[in-house]
């Protein structure tokens, strides 16, 4: 096939994947509501088909462009959406064995892909400008996209769900139990060594039977923390790899370019989040707010800097 045909093939698969994600998203929401096994099986099947098509779309884009397929906003958006879905399948369904959150993770990906379509990010596959043609940028971008997908999952999706569920639980509990002190993390009767670890859930741990559409808030809280703690070193690595690339390309590893600045801000906020949980016992809602602030900063790093703030990293025009 010619490059043009490969590019077209990639676009068709992209649309196919988007379509599959949409259907699967509806299915997952239905599963959340009705909890019927066959709905989950069908949604998961469509999801996997979409994931496969998406992987092929990304690969054929690489073939069409004769390079790794992450060189501009269109390609980043596609890869980000792909990795969020992949992380959902591997981490949330695979490791945490929670099935009910597919709709939300897919909604994030559908949104990302939709914005890429509507926002006219598309540019034909073209070779990179020489500065982008470095080993380190490949490493940097892969790590940054994996890190962002995980932050988006933990700091965005899971944290929002946690807050929603927590709100609902508190409304139900309020009549029965007095509210816990400040997120209820610290039991004053415990000797200090027993103070809950950063990854420990707060709230209703004992709850066994499912109530409502979502897992208990304590489970969501822990999943959010674990996902963010998983993402943090990857993001750290991404920033370091980016600095190494900047040193190679421009002779300075750090120049406070807007993209660098905002990825640093995101890093600081999530470092603050980890601190809040590890040392000052800020758990539950307060920590969730910090995670959400981090998510907003991530969105700025990802979208606003590329599209509105001009710097060395503005790729859209290429």
């Amino acid at each position, binding site marked *: 096939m010619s490059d043009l045909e490969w590019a077209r093939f990639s676009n068709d698969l992209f649309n196919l994947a988007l379509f599959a994600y949409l259907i699967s998203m509806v299915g997952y929401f239905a599963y959340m509501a009705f909890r019927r096994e066959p709905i989950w099986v069908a949604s998961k099947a469509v999801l996997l088909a979409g994931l496969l098509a998406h992987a092929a779309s990304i690969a054929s884009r690489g073939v069409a462009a004769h390079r790794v397929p992450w060189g501009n906003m269109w390609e980043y958006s596609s890869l980000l959406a792909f990795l969020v879905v992949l992380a959902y399948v591997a981490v949330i369904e695979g490791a945490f064995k929670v099935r009910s959150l597919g709709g939300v993770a897919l909604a994030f990906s559908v949104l990302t892909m939709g914005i890429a379509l509507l926002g006219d990010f598309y540019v034909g596959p073209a070779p990179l400008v020489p500065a982008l043609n470095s080993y380190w940028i490949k490493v940097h971008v892969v790590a940054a996209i994996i890190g962002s997908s995980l932050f988006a999952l933990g700091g965005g999706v899971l944290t929002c769900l946690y807050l929603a569920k927590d709100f609902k639980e508190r409304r139900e509990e309020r009549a029965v139990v007095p509210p816990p002190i400040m997120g209820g993390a610290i039991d004053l009767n415990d000797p200090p*060594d027993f103070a809950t670890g950063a990854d420990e859930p707060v709230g209703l741990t004992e709850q066994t039977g499912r109530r409502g559409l979502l897992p208990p808030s304590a489970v969501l809280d822990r999943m959010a923390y674990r996902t963010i703690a998983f993402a943090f070193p990857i993001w750290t690595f991404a920033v*370091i790899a980016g600095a190494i690339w900047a040193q190679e390309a421009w002779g300075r590893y750090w120049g406070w370019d807007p993209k660098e*600045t905002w990825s640093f801000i995101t890093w600081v906020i999530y470092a603050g989040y980890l601190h809040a949980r590890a040392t000052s016992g800020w758990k539950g809602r307060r920590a969730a707010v910090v995670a959400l602030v981090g998510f907003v900063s991530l969105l700025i790093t990802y979208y606003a800097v590329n599209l509105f703030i001009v710097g060395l990293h503005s790729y859209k025009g290429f």
Partner: protein
Amino acid sequence: MACGPSLSLLRSVALVWRTLRSMRTALILLLMLAGASVIGSLIPQLPNSPEKVFGYTADHPLAAEIYSRLGFFDVFGAWWFSLIITLLVVSLIACLIPRTRGTVRSVRQKPIQAREIDSFPHYEERNVTLPAGAATTVCRKVLRRKLFRVAASENSLAAEKGSAREIGSLLFHWAFLLIVVGAIYGKGTGYSGRAAVIEGETWTDSLAGYDGSIRTGRFFGGDFSGSQIRLKDFEDTFRASGIPMDFVSRVDLLNPDGSLVRAAEIRVNHPATFAGVRVFQYGFGWAPVVQVRDDGKLLWSGPVAFSQDTAPEGVPQLALPWRGVLKLPSLDPQVGITLELWPDGQAFLQTQLTGQPVVMVVARDPIIRFTTYSGPLTDPSQRRLDTSIMKEQAAGILGQGQVVDLTTGRALETGADPNAGLTISFPDLRKYSVFEVSRDNGVWMVLLAAILVLLGLLPALYTSKRKVWVRLESGEGRTILKVGGFAVQRKSQFSKEFSDLVAALERAAGKVNP
């Protein structure tokens, strides 16, 4: 007051120190750093985009005045930014010293025996066959084999595991400090600037070599290396669309005395390092060789580095012509010439005919459009010509190899006397290469620290500290094995580890078959 000023000074120093020692202060400072960088990313910055700052100043004079007073146009060079960084460093050190001491102490210290082990979150009892003393010995071995640190006292064991978390966390924090220190050291004692070198010419690493485009660190003493770079040739390759593919500068790197260090190729992402500086490919431009003669006497001969205006929205940068000026101060009246190079003469024609911009990436029949002005040369700059009090004399077009009369703008006829009048010619078209030259002796420190940050982060986030106590009590004809313990972090994983441990201890101490 009884306590003199020195004591109250001491007290306030102690208060400041105590404030700096708290983690909250460090985190607030870190957030202030982040906040400052938000400002820096939203308001145009002088070092990065001076033209935007000037544009902003013209559009919003009042806001610009306020911003400039506050240092918002150069956030990362402002005194208060340095202050935040300094306080952060001090605060981090103040935080880390006691924490490090505490960790060293706790790693050295033997695990402490517990009084009542059945009150721990995890607790199990088993009957075993070995007598208490012997069972204690084998249990200790089991714990040792599982990498616990164990302290024994009379049929009781106290064991701990997972100092990696604390040590990793400390490593992370110290390494982060080292990044900041390395950056301050490297940037503070170094410099960076742009050097434009025309093909065939030699450039010297000295203050003059940077033509004003240099940023020096606060502690830089002016000791430039004096080393030299001779640009043998510059090559660029483009796609037809104007997307650059590669830039290569072939250079000789020379010692200050002019002797050759080595030849090198400098290209994007492949800098050359020598004499303590790193030289990066940054940009390029055209440098036509121009000769001006006055009645045959050579007034100027040599390459002139031309530069481009910034392209308006929607126009490719390389479709724009290149501009330069030439000044002839020795004439009376003085003469200044503005020159406009179109490296691709065919693109020039096409642009004239269709009005569409055409990207020029190779030299094809290059032409120079010029305008001659006469009058006093007031602007000392080599790049600009102030024509406000000069008189336009002539304008014309100069092709490569032609000789053109500067006063009429017309080319000399073939056979006309080449040595009559004021003439200009354009025998050759060269390129110049722009290098970003920088000296930063802190890079290795920052890189090392970055690696340590990652190395420390992993155990700090993913391991946990666990404590276990074992007690063996002699009962009637049997021994009771009591095991209690807890994990400080990752408690859910600990349940399994704990029951495995109890099973292993029971097996070692002689399981009682039911």
